[in-house]
């Protein structure tokens, strides 16, 4: 009997026959007996080493299962876990994953893709950025999936012109118990994880719950400082009745990381280890601290102090689902969520100039160093703070007819996004008054808090969707027409602050909306073969930043803005993409594979450019582009202990428009037409081979990423690279108290390959050209590859 390659097992529990020789077919009269349950024996059953499942939808999709997650280092972030999947170009700033990383799929950056945890959106509600190191502990993660080309019709995204990524956490277990895991590694790496499960409690409406806590720490692989992360996950499942379930999950993350220094290519060639300084800048007895020797810094010979380049972040996410089966056709669900995030980042070492002038906001910055005058320029700790309160809910109705499944739903959220930039003080020993920038803040002479920016954006996102799955031709053919009406309204309130373009109060609002149709189909050819295809339209709203910085020529009278000019940025609209995809899948007994061919027409891409209508250099629809290519993945089931997974990606991306820029003060067009997308290699290959025998397991995986351009003009590029990772494990015999005690070894970058990763954090912040005579020109910066890193983990359930 074949064993299914999934974590899910399905057993034919009972089989009864009601012989109906005389009476009418009497199934009701027959008894059935529960004869037990078939469980799948974990690891050995995985398809493609746990790096794929048998997909059968109308979209290209790849899934990483628990079996693969369990082999990885426990701190691995979702980007690392997805790295071998077709279409995915992922990089991590370090080997552990605790510092974050970047992800691109089909040329779309992670902030152009939709991310969900248990169905709730986790992209930043302002600029759609994604911080993978904040999410669920991998011990509690059951599955990750990526749809390479487009978002799912029912997914709650307004900021995804590319595909979507979903993280699904494991619910509580049926049996009471828990899990403990301890990792140790180079660079003082430790992770301690403890999870407790209540097991099923109660009979009529049983519930179960779990809670886990983890603490992770690692030093940076170069320079000073490290990452420090505390994380809590909790979950509850409550089966109210046979037909009604209530689930809830909570995630809490608290992290303080020192930033890794990014370098230009020439810096890397001369000194690949260039890093933040370990010299604490000293306050001067009087006068100007804005010198390289003091709090001023430059990136070449006087980098900032590492202790003042921090990324403190705290967030929690509550997700819940109440689902009820109303009758044999209708199922209703409500899925509320609440996201809270608070943090700052970048290099916070800076200087501020005191002033006593009434012609400045709030009569200028007060006496920071308390020396009795307001004439100094003082070293301060200041960073962009974002605080998000984001409640939302999705309602869904599933209506199942025999050959027709209808999914209708509505998503709503209201994100309050408060973005500020306060400042605080530090002493001469490197102690910051409050590194979270919540207290001991510097004030203006009128008593108000100093802010380098202070604006509130209320983003109201909505989406109504309808998806029909029509089954025809004896279940061989499925049609999936869908439609989604998505909108986001941004209500923006600027409170006068000392930031450029932000010196007076104003309000603005913008609404972006789009009707997004999709059509998919699958057809089962002769048995192991299936073909599929879809056309899907996506959209991404501009970030809330386009509503900021409209103020110019402000005059202050007695510290209050009395006259100013407001220049609205009216011309920017949402970017849209249309994804055409056709593919083929093979689901054999020993091997599964899929091949997808696609084209993405990408319109009105948003990037920083020169907008001739406003005569400003801001986010702007810079033109159209097109991506074509194919993705292939193949995975086998274990044969004599061996199993393999492979993926190949070919991406042909092309900008279709010239880029509006300025040369000096002259408006000009840079000839970007025909150039290749930044950080989008033509070829990528991923492969993994695994051998497991009894208690032993060993897996070697490799990834090749081709040459990547890092400017829109394609005048700078970084070489391709191949890295290998090695994972091994040994499972000891279970004892009375310890279940499945396992020792695991993880080696990242086995051959210590040295390479660069693009630091193109956002889809819109790409360096245009290395020619600095153009606006937006400059040298792109890079993250330096992390060297070989080894860790061991002992874990056991109990």
């Amino acid at each position: 009997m074949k064993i299914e390659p999934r974590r899910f097992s399905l057993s034919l529990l009972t089989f009864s026959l009601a012989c109906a020789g005389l009476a009418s077919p009497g199934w009701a009269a027959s008894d059935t007996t529960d004869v037990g349950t078939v469980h799948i024996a974990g690891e050995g059953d995985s398809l493609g080493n746990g790096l794929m499942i048998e997909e059968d939808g109308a979209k290209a999709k790849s899934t990483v299962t628990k079996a693969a997650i369990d082999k990885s280092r426990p701190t691995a972030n979702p980007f690392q876990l997805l790295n071998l999947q077709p279409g995915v170009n992922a990089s991590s700033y370090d080997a552990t994953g605790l510092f974050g990383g970047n992800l691109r799929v089909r040329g779309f950056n992670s902030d152009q893709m939709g991310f969900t945890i248990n169905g709730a959106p986790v992209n930043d509600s302002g600029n759609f950025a994604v911080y993978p190191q904040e999410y669920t502990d991998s011990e509690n993660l059951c599955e990750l999936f990526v749809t390479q080309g487009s978002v799912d019709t029912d997914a709650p995204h307004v900021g995804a012109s590319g595909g979507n990524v979903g993280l699904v956490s494991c619910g509580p277990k049926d049996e009471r118990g828990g899990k403990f895991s301890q990792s140790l590694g180079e660079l003082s790496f430790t992770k301690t994880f403890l999870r407790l499960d209540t097991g099923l409690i109660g009979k009529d409406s049983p519930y179960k719950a779990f809670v886990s806590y983890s603490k992770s720490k690692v030093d940076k692989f170069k320079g000073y400082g490290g990452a420090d992360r505390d994380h809590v996950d909790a979950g509850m499942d409550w089966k109210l009745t046979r037909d009604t379930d209530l689930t809830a999950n909570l995630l809490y993350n608290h992290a303080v990381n020192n930033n890794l220094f990014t370098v230009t290519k020439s810096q890397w060639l001369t000194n690949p280890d260039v890093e933040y300084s370990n010299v604490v800048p000293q306050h001067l007895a009087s006068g100007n601290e804005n010198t390289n020797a003091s709090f001023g810094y430059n990136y070449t010979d006087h980098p900032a102090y590492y202790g003042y380049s921090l990324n403190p972040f705290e967030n929690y996410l509550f997700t819940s689902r109440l689902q009820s089966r109303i009758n044999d056709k209708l199922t209703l669900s409500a899925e509320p969520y609440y996201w809270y995030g608070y943090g700052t980042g970048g290099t916070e070492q800076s200087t501020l100039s005191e002033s006593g002038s009434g012609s400045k906001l709030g009569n200028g910055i007060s006496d920071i160093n308390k020396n009795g005058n307001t004439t100094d320029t003082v070293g301060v700790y200041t960073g962009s703070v974002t605080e998000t309160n984001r409640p939302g809910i999705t309602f869904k109705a599933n209506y199942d007819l025999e050959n027709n499944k209808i999914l209708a739903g509505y998503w709503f959220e209201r994100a309050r996004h408060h973005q500020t930039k306060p400042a605080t003080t530090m002493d001469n020993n490197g102690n910051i008054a409050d590194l979270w920038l919540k207290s001991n803040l510097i004030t203006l002479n009128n008593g108000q808090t100093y802010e380098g920016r202070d604006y509130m954006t209320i983003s109201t996102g909505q989406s109504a969707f309808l998806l029909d799955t029509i089954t025809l031709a004896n279940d061989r053919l499925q049609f999936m027409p869908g439609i989604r009406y998505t909108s986001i309204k941004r209500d923006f309130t600027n409170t006068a602050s000392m930031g450029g373009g932000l010196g007076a109060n104003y309000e603005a609002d913008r609404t972006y909306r789009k009707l997004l149709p999709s059509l998919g189909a699958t057809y089962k050819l002769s048995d192991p073969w299936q073909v599929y295809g879809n056309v899907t339209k996506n959209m991404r709203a501009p970030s809330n930043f386009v509503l900021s910085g409209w103020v110019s020529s402000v005059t202050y009278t007695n510290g209050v803005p009395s006259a100013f000019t407001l220049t609205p940025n009216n011309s920017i609209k949402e970017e849209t993409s249309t994804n055409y995809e056709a593919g083929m899948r093979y689901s054999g007994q020993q091997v599964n594979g899929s091949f997808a061919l696609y084209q993405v027409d990408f319109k009105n891409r948003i990037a920083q450019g020169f907008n001739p209508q406003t005569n400003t250099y801001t986010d702007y629809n810079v033109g159209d582009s097109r991506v074509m290519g194919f993705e292939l993945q193949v995975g086998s089931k274990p044969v004599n202990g061996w199993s393999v997974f492979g993926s190949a990606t070919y991406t042909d991306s092309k900008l279709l428009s010239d880029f509006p820029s300025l040369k000096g003060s002259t408006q000009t067009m840079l000839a970007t037409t025909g150039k290749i997308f930044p950080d989008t290699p033509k070829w990528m290959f991923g492969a993994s081979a695994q051998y497991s025998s009894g208690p032993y397991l060993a897996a070697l995986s490799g990834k090749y990423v081709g040459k990547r351009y890092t400017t829109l003009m394609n005048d700078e590029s970084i070489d391709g690279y191949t890295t290998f990772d090695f994972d091994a494990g040994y499972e000891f015999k279970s004892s009375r108290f310890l279940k499945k005690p396992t020792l695991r070894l993880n080696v990242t970058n086995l051959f210590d390959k040295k390479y660069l990763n693009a630091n193109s954090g956002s889809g819109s912040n790409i360096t245009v050209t290395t020619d600095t005579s153009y606006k937006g020109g400059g040298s792109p910066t890079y993250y330096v590859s992390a060297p070989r890193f080894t860790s061991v983990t002992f874990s056991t359930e109990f």
Partner: protein
Amino acid sequence: MAGLWEWLYRNRDPVSYGMAVAMILLALWPRPALQPAHVQPSMELMAMLEEPSPPKEKETPPKIPEPQPRPVLRPLPQPVEAPPAAQPVEALPPKPVVQEAPAPVVQRVVEPVRAPAPVPAPPKPVVQEQPKSAVVSAHYEQYVLAALEKAKRYPTSREARLTHPQGVVRVWLEINRDGQLTGVGVVDSSGSNLLDSEALHTVRSISFPAFPEQAYVGQSLHRFVVGLKYEINSDH
């Protein structure tokens, strides 16, 4: 989309390499025989079902161990053992049948390798008191069960992957003598329509063989009930 053809032409090299690699990998993969992955009446099974009526006792045993490549299709010894007790008394197999029948299935799933062992033993007792029809019918039932074992899968839709529903669906299915599925429905819901319809979908995806002559004698169609238990492996 016109651009696609142009693009395909310009990139014919990488695209064709990719497709070639895909084809080669898939075609050359060492998979056991080139049998279709889905459940269709196999030769062995058909042979088993046809069960040429000759001398009852001695002929039957050799048939049973016959099928080699697919353990699925091996006749399951135990269920056959059960009926004798009940059979003489009532025309319909009451509880005992039901209780015993599924056991071997489970065993097989868990330990496919061990399957052959029990095979030799049962045949004899089987046939002794057993009316031919019951034996043949039991074989057919085993086929239905085995076919379901093969076609079963956990749903892969986005909804299923996000919500991981679990539960037992009890399904009835009605097959006529020609092996056509004439009806299928849910007896007891799992509490999840997604699983219920996946179960129905699974049943519909199977091609059943015609009834052997001696099975369900006198019935133009026959109804079966089966339970499908969907669960998430909480070992992980």
